[in-house]
């Protein structure tokens, strides 16, 4: 992936930060997360116009043509704001999957709509076990006349209920291939799953002989894995940015909340927690940015960098969000306080693309152990 320069990426990040500050505050988040779609279509269009939705789509296909480094930086802002919506599922994972197939005709047909936000694509990859490995694919494709039909179940499909385009990884006699399906077609049912993180949208899709079109290009699991790596790096950026933000909120609170006649932040029990969390937060930022650089440069050892970010960022965000509640005391146990919104997102992110234990195992393998 090519990538824009660092200056440009930083300038883009700043623009995004301003838009999110104006349009994606906590009140907005609370409003849209209780709507069925889970995101604000007007803001989504604005984000697309800014270039966020098509950030990793090549300019030739209507995108910004930025690479993983700019994506990661942007996702730090997205995470800090807990921005809800199909960005990760459609703009990153699905767009990344189409691009990874490497078939020009498919890319030219599908990517412009994804990049300009007018189409929401969802990648249906893993089955109900949620393992994100080749073995986890639980949809089968069989030839049917000129086309194919799909049977089986895909789960953990990000914004599957909002999608108008499905990209389905399915088994064929020759291994894994990627198929395009219409979510409104007969022979499939999209069921929204209730999520603990109310700002998240996940669907399970049951295929019972749904018609599908096989997409050309790079066959097999490799394309899926490339798209998952990209999504993983984006999510790592989200986690790093969100973790840093909750920590900032918590430190601010510790400076102003007075008990025993002094700010609680002057107590070592609180101060030392904050210091430890800063190490977690900064390490997450380092890990996420390093993984993005490794992907952008297609560096040898990129796998290790991606999986390191996979568990380090997830656990850092989860630890920070959980500890933040303890550091705030009772106020953070209320629904109206934002701390639990971060904890919910953190707990979701820990599971979304593979649990930390799995990433740790993959990290070791990538190191040759």
């Amino acid at each position: 992936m090519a990538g824009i320069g660092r200056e440009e990426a930083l300038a883009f990040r700043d623009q995004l930060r301003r838009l999110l500050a104006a349009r994606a505050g906590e009140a907005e988040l609370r409003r849209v997360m209780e709507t069925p779609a889970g995101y604000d279509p007007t803001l989504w269009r604005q984000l697309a116009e800014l270039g966020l939705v098509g950030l990793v789509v090549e300019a030739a296909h209507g995108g910004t043509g930025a690479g993983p480094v700019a994506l990661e930086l942007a996702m730090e802002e997205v995470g800090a704001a807990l921005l809800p919506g199909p960005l990760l599922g459609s703009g990153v994972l699905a767009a990344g999957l189409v691009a990874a197939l490497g078939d020009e005709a498919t890319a030219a047909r599908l990517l412009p709509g994804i990049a300009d936000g007018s189409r929401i694509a969802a990648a249906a990859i893993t089955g109900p076990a949620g393992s994100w490995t080749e073995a986890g694919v639980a949809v089968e494709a069989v030839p049917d006349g000129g086309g194919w039909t799909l049977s089986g179940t895909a789960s953990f499909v990000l914004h599957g209920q909002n999608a108008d385009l499905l990209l389905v990884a399915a088994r064929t006699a020759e291994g894994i291939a990627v198929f395009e399906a219409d979510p409104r077609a007969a022979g499939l049912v999209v069921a929204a799953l209730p999520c603990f993180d109310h700002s998240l949208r996940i669907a399970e899709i049951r295929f019972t002989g749904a018609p599908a079109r096989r997409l050309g290009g790079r066959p097999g699991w490799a394309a899926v894995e490339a798209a998952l790596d990209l999504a993983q790096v984006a999510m790592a950026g989200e986690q790093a940015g969100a973790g840093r933000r909750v920590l900032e909120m918590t430190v601010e609170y510790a400076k102003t909340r007075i008990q025993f006649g002094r700010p609680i932040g002057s107590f070592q029990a609180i101060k030392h927690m904050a210091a430890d969390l800063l190490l977690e937060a900064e390490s997450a930022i380092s890990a996420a940015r390093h993984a993005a650089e490794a992907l952008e440069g297609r560096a040898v050892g990129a796998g290790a960098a991606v999986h390191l970010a996979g568990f380090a960022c997830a656990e850092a965000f989860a630890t920070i969000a959980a500890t933040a509640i303890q550091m705030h005391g009772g106020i953070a146990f209320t629904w109206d306080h934002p701390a639990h919104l971060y904890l919910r997102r953190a707990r979701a992110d820990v599971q979304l693309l593979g649990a930390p234990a799995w990433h740790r195992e993959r990290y070791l393998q990538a190191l040759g152990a």
Partner: protein
Amino acid sequence: MTDALRDEVRAWLAAHWTGPAADEAAARAWLAKVVEARWAVPRWPVEWGGRALPDAEARIIEAEFAALGAPGTGQDRTNLYANTLLAFGTQALKERLLLRMLRGEVPMCLLYSEPNAGSDLAGLRCRAERRDGQWVVNGQKVWTSYAAVAEYGMLVARTDWDAPKHRGISFFFCPMRQPGVEVRPLRQITGESRFNEVFLTDALIPEENLLGQPGQGWAVLQTALAYERSVMGEAARGPRSGVAEGTGEPPLIALAREAGRLGDPVLRQDLARVLAYRALNALNTARAKADLAQGTSSPLMSLGKLAMSRILHEEARLRTAILGPESLFEGPEHPRAEDANFLTLNAYFTSIGGGTDQIQRNIIGERVLGLPREPEVDRDLPFRQVRSQ
């Protein structure tokens, strides 16, 4: 510009570097060459053996040296003694010592801690008085690493007993090889004797060995401590057996493989977790350097030492876990146990020395995150009225 510089370093290294020094004399000879060629402190002014280069260009030199494993450059970041002297020393002292220090010819020690002043270093009671154009020192220091071999000690002593604790301290280069300085080795938990007690009885220090102004030693000390902590955050002593670390497979993986434990899924999780600590610290350090090169200060600088302390304790714990009952043993027939046990103990060097982990957390909380200070009852009292022990 940068390409020309890279070519110049490469050519110089190609002409001079012949591999790791066989003994101390060879190591010194190498350092002397590096100093002479002005590679030792490229960021320093030309006057003191430097090249006045910006950080980014100095990094190029460091990278070229590192690629060959050649030591000696980058002392403008890592040589805490020389940097402190450059920043605060008198012209005469600099002329006498700076280049010798860069050439590794001046063994040094740190005369900071006292029996009653450890974490609370500003509570120190070692006394220095000006008499007949020199300073006369009386008091006791403790935990002084390398005092037995040092030529000079960087000394903090109280010169004003009426000022509050932080404001009556002065900073000196104290000559160690004189009758007024008595060094008694202490045996450490590792069995080694690197640190010592130092008794100062009418020890004499020339006027020109004062760094900064009298009473402003605390500021000098902060500079010296910052260098010390940043070095401790980047690297630490490896196993005593001297088995080379760094290149190739991470030592923990090699050990687990050798011990036949690499297939144990529980151990693998632990292994990945612990390896990540070191990997993340290296990434943080790299990011801190990049921030620095761009002229922005970085919170990361303060985190390295705390991170390194966790790395060392956790790596030692995991080594022990990999070995299991083998770690009961010591001696030359059990080198793996020797390493695990030594590293377990020596990890405290980083978590206590140079400011404990708890003090580091205070510093991060207060100076980086801006949290309010701990109330300090004796902070503004004239030192005479301060209670100790």
